[in-house]
């Protein structure tokens, strides 16, 4: 592994763990979406490191593009659900969602 691959892998793992921490640390739904986005940044970095290590940058580039599209759709759906949840329950607390019934 080259120095660049080591650095990118290290940063990717670090950012991924920070994203997991954000998911555990906060109850605000918007901050949970931020945590998911931070997780996605870490995954993108680790994908890039894998592509660099294998010398397959075009292949990993197409996977990253696919991942970005999935991430964007996920964020759009989550944010719209958050708006509706806030209008319905009057709160952004994730515990309020436990009141949802079938």
């Amino acid at each position, binding site marked *: *592994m080259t*120095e*660049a691959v080591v650095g*990118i892998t*290290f940063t990717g*793992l*670090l*950012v991924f*763990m*920070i*994203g997991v*921490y*954000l998911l*555990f*640390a*906060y109850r*605000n739904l*918007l901050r949970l*979406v*931020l945590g998911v*986005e*931070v997780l*996605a*940044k870490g995954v*993108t*970095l680790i994908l*890039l490191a894998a592509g*660099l*290590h*294998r*010398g*397959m*940058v075009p*292949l*990993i*580039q*197409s*996977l*990253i*593009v*696919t991942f*970005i*599209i*999935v991430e*964007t*759709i996920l*964020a*759009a*759906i989550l*944010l*719209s*659900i*958050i*708006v*509706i949840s*806030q*209008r*319905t329950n009057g709160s*952004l*607390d994730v515990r309020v969602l436990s009141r949802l019934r079938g």
Partner: protein
Amino acid sequence: MTLLIGCLVLLVVAVVLLGLFQDLLYSALGLAVASIMLSIVLFQFGANIAAVFELSVCAGLITVLFVSTVSLTKDSDQKGESRLPARFLLPMLVVFAGVAFGGVTWLASHVAAAPAAAPHTFQDVFWGQRSSDVLGQIAIILAGVLGMLAVLRVKLQGGHHD
């Protein structure tokens, strides 16, 4: 190499500040800065199209969506939202860095040297080898549009009831 290290450090700093900011707008800006740094890293290694996607979609579109959502929900409660005090993030960062260092060390000793790969262009890979991914992307985008429509329909019905 200096630019790479600088971008990676700034990315981590932006992500940490994102978790420490009390104001969600500043947190959204931190996420945008992290996306910009990631796109610079992608651009440095020849992943130009992925870099453009990251810059325009993640740093642009998602930030706009997030700020719009913050403004739509600004009257709701944002106090007492933290399950863990924010001051735990910096000590945990040291633990995370140690775990990441251990993981990289393990990977460096266990991952075999890379074989020489045949050169391809992004277009060959994306439209030739990974054409099924394009179908998946179209399906995901359609699912997203249908999901948004379903949510908006619920919203309209709720408005009629009010």
